[in-house]
């Protein structure tokens, strides 16, 4: 018996009524990255990168060059105003190389293979026109792939995530530590940069798994044991923290059930995403919505999936999409639940936590607040079933649809059937006009 909320076969709000299976990969597809409005790249354990047209599902290019699985991929578009925009992608692989690809021609532009360890993350600082690679050390490169500077060997585990912070700073997640670096322009050369370790933050109890920037002033980290810390992006101080997502001591009715299933895997913060107001966390099998202003979780779905949630994304229309190891993709909607003040608060549905350690006072304050603020809950509006194995990631293309990639080697393009049908009609009548077969009788 599972406590996962299910939705029947009738899903009126689910717009995705057409799918297109894109075949090509021979191993787990782990990464999807958007190149421009209608193109995206996919990469995974087979070391091949595919470029796809998101509208037609057409395979544009098949990029071969890596001999091992891809560990990181990032788009790198030129900022030159003079030239036409050039779309590049950077890929890092377990073969200790990084390759720059040209998305227009489908050719390899350049290859760097002087790494001592696998590059686990890549990030582009568009503003400075440099890119960084993080492995056991942190390297800074310019567009021409010259190594500008690098740090000394940091950790054996290596850097798992990088995040650009204001004032030329970078946050790097290396194991349990969060290290802040600063890029300083060197005096002698015009284009030289030096990198300086500024601070090490050791507030997390376990490995930091996710790192996301909320706005210029805040960023958020999540760890394997379910800690979520909100940081000030300027002075790197802890603004708020949320931990023990699983701990429901305040809700004795569900406590026993939760405790039973409690394990680090169940509570690890797999992925974080945010909009201006909220941070959306994929914690274990559940989804939590943390409001930054209120500094508490305002809505949650403890068991949103049958298995760990791997990726989560907020859509503009108050919807949330999550994908999971169970092979399904689910669409949620954050809804307001207007409550009568006199009614007792139904707390079973979501957790509330104050900042820091929960104390009675904060708890009471939170309850007090609830009485005059609207309540939220996550409603399941649809699910997409197509993959037969874990859905690693997805890419939301707005109108064009949704691309999901999975361990079953497939990429599926989910599309709005109504829209596609209309587009086909449009194409049809265009073709008729071109062929001169369409005559309008007046």
């Amino acid at each position, binding site marked *: 018996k599972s406590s996962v909320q299910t939705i*029947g*076969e*009738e*899903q*009126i709000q*689910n717009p995705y*009524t*057409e*799918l*297109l*299976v894109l*075949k090509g990969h021979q191993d787990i597809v782990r990464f999807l990255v958007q190149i421009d409005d209608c193109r995206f790249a996919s990469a995974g354990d087979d070391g091949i990168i595919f470029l796809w047209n998101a509208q*037609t*599902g057409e395979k544009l290019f098949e990029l071969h060059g890596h001999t091992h699985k891809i560990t990181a991929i990032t788009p790198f578009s030129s900022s030159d105003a003079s030239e036409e925009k050039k779309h590049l992608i950077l890929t890092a692989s377990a073969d200790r190389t990084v390759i720059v690809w040209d998305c227009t021609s489908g050719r390899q532009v350049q290859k760097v293979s002087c790494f001592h360890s696998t590059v686990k993350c890549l990030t582009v600082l568009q503003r400075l026109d440099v890119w960084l690679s993080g492995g056991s050390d942190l390297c800074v490169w310019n567009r021409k792939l010259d190594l500008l500077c690098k740090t000394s060997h940091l950790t054996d585990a290596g850097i798992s995530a990088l995040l650009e912070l204001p004032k030329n700073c970078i946050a790097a997640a290396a194991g349990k530590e969060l290290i802040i670096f600063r890029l300083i322009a060197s005096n002698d050369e015009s284009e030289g940069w030096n990198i300086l370790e500024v601070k090490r933050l050791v507030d997390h109890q376990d490995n930091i798994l996710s790192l996301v920037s909320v706005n210029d002033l805040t960023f958020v980290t999540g760890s394997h044991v379910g800690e979520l810390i909100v940081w000030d992006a300027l002075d790197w101080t802890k603004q708020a923290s949320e931990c023990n997502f699983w701990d429901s001591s305040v809700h004795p009715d569900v406590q026993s059930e939760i405790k039973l299933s409690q394990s680090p895997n169940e509570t690890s913060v797999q992925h974080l995403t945010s909009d201006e107001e909220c941070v959306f966390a994929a914690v274990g099998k559940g989804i939590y919505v943390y409001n930054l202003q209120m500094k508490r979780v305002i809505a949650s779905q403890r068991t949103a999936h049958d298995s760990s949630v791997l990726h989560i994304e907020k859509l503009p229309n108050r919807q949330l999409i999550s994908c999971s190891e169970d092979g399904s993709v689910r669409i949620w909607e954050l809804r307001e639940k207007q409550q009568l003040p006199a009614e007792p608060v139904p707390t079973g549905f979501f957790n509330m936590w104050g900042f820091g350690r929960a104390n009675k006072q904060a708890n009471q304050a939170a309850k007090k607040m609830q009485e005059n603020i609207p309540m939220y809950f996550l409603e399941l509006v*649809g699910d997409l*079933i*197509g*993959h*037969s194995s874990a859905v690693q990631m997805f890419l939301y293309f707005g109108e064009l649809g949704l691309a999901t990639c999975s361990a*079953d080697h*497939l990429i*599926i393009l989910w599309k709005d*059937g109504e829209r596609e*049908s*209309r587009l*086909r*009609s*449009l*194409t*049809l*009548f265009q*073709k*008729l006009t071109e062929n*001169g*077969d*369409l*005559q*309008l*009788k007046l």
Partner: protein
Amino acid sequence: MISAPDVVAFTREEELEDELCNEPPLPEEYSVPLFPFASHGTNPWAKVASSKFTRDFILISEFSEQVGPQPLLTIPDDAKVSGTFDLNYFSLRIMSVDYQASFVGHPPGSAYPKLNFVEDSKVVLGDSKEGAFAYVHHLTLYDLEARGFVRPFCMAYISADEHKIMQQFQELSAEFSKASECLKTGNRKAFANELEKKLKDLDYTRTVLHNETEIQKKANDKGYYTTQAIEKANELASVEKSIIEHQDLLKQIRSYPYRKLKESDFHPYEPDCVLDQASVGCDQDPTTSDLAEPGETHLCAHVPSYTPKLIKAKSAKCFDKKLKTLEELCDIYFFTQTLDQLHQIERTFRGDVCYLLTDQISRALLKQQIVTNFLFEDGSFLDEKPSEKQHRGCQGPSQDAIDRKCSEELSAPKVVISMGSYKSSVECVPIKMEQEIEDSQEPKLSESVTFEHQENLDYLDADIKGSISSGESIEVLGTEKSASGLTKSESQASLPVSPSPQVGRSKVGSRRTVSEDSIEVLSTCPSESLIPEDFKASYPSAINEEPYADDEEGGLHFTPKLNPDNADEQEEFKQDNLVQVDSACCIGKESPNFLEPLPDLGQKPCDEDGVVRIPPQPYWQAEPGLRGSLGGFPSHDGISGGLLPYEVDSRYLTGSREVSKSSLDECSDSTSYISSAASTCSDRTPSPAHPACPASERHKKKAGQNALRFIRQYPFAHPAIYSLLSGRTLVVLGEEEAIVKKLVTALSIFVPNCGVYAKPVKHWVTSPLHVVDFQKWKLIGLQRMVSPAGVNVLPALSRYSRYVSILDADSKTLRCPLYKGTLVSRLADHRTQIKRGSTYYMHVQSILTQLCSKAFLFTFCHHLHLPINEREPEESVVNRRMNFLKLQLGLANEDIKIVQYLAELLKLQYIQEPGRRVKPLLRFDYVPSFLYKI
């Protein structure tokens, strides 16, 4: 197929009027031709009782110079077929038609004997006493020992049904021409061989004689010649003359233009024998070797070393000498090919004429539905392009004619959808689906040709009269000439004309009384006699060819190509059509089916030197092709009965060889149908096998039968069929493969195609299904696993349950969305009176065709999908769309989804880039499913 021939039997005019009085009548070209004698109250199946044979057959007979007309063989080679019918007498009749008035063996004054390369003649004969009507195809074969080197033969298609012969004249003529061409090609080869041997003999004789003369000269040097010496010298001279004559004959026979072979569709050898050629070791360019290479090398190559004999100077033509048999007259490979071809003809034209007619009409009509016909029709015949015809050689003879006919008709159609009747919310949007321009030019051209020939009518008239003057007993019912006017008008009609009831009736009216002597020449087409003298080029080289040469046609100029590659196909095609009109000038007016120009009379514009040569191929080289054609026949045989056992009149169960071959599986429930079938199918012969795709024809019957059983057996057939029509994959789950496959076969007739490729049907799968499978297949037979390997099958199925409907063949349940529409109930009524599989199949097809036309209208109505102006909101377009579907197309509830799905398929097909496959995509709805139980 659009129309069901079974319906014909029950259409009485009065009933029709009652039923249809409220509805607007169908355009004439779409209506099934009424049985012309329906008003006389006769049963259309009741044949002329007087005929003494049980079914149609083909008779080959010869006018032997020794014994006169004699029958040689019949096809099928079965004594039961001809029954008590007097073949000898009939042979006499058919051979007595003097068909070659202008035939000249040794024209007086010519130096050498000439070979007359005469065209075959085609005559329709009626023998009302015998109750036999025949299409008679006369041809001559060469025989060195025969008088004038020629042996007259004829092939006759004999049927009790006069209308069949008349209406199918065109097709019969085309098919028999091919067979004749094949036979003649083989004969020329054999004749050339014979000539070579004779030449060697003569050469040897000359040497011997020469030596003897020399010896005699030396022996007596008296200065004068002895009578003996003079005799020898005369003998030598006559041998030398004979050598020259024979050499000339050889030259003539070798220079025989093989252009017929090139331009007609007949190809005795498989054209793709490039490999064979390579293996033979001919280093010729494969593109040219086939046609341009003179045959000498090949001819000599395989002739076994021949020891010349001494021959008497005057080998008298004695009557005790045994003439060569037909088999000896012809190269064995070509002889077998010809027989195959004739068997094929017999198979094609057997059965009632209405089968042939409806089939031809529906095929022609289907060809026009270029936008929608891929949905439910067999891909097999849609694929057939003129360029591909060639490669099929002898195998699909009548198909060519139909193809040709259809492509002819394709030139005209302009699908003009006038939305006049949909006034409410839709503005008038005529959509014109035009064919390529080059196509539409054909008819005009041919028209002008027809006109050109009007002035020659005098000639034609005279010639025809001359050719039928051979006896008081022979009466000409009609000459083919009179059709010229019709042909002309026909070329501009936008739709193919089917034999309309009116024409039929007028024909009845003009039926003549049976004459005493009982032989009637219903129509003649001696093409030789059609050629005005002016057009005959007198070649000094003494080849008396019928020159349909370019310039003499006046204004028409052809540039024939030597290489018949695909690019030129169209070109040749036109030429065919142009030339065919010549013969169309003389087609009997009262047979409406003759309206199309003759597909092939072998009269083709020739290339510059008038010669296109194909090297006669060594026998062994041709063998693979032969084997291939023979290999193809068992399948033909298996279904050649046309009807499955339970559909065949019971008295044929014993007689017909083919029938017994049919599998027992299909006999399983035969008993219940025999009685009913006998009532409706008292036809004397099984219905014709469809040469295009016999396998699929068989499949259709089987599928129809299974489908009929399915809808009777399962009360939830409707939602299952709805699933298929709306594009939701239906999984048939079961333990036993045979049961599952049977169900899949039954249901496959309801599955719309996603492209012009194979149906998206998978009969048997044992591994767990995946989302890709649903994208690819719309009907799947799935094994319910008992072994541990199949553990994943069911979970996978329940996981993807939103995409599939599941029909459980073991527990007889169906899990699928609700269906409340009305369309499927017409398609699959479990109380249907239809008994036969093939009939039900056609019933389904006709309803599906109707559905297709709705989908077509829906798809190609501009304002249903796009706003009329830019400011119009999307909702109003959606409203208009729904209104159209509900009110104009009269669709209820779920039927809308069917049409929408078909429309999507049409769009995908239409907008696909040429040369690229339609990308399979899976469309689905989030609708709840229900479980149905028996």
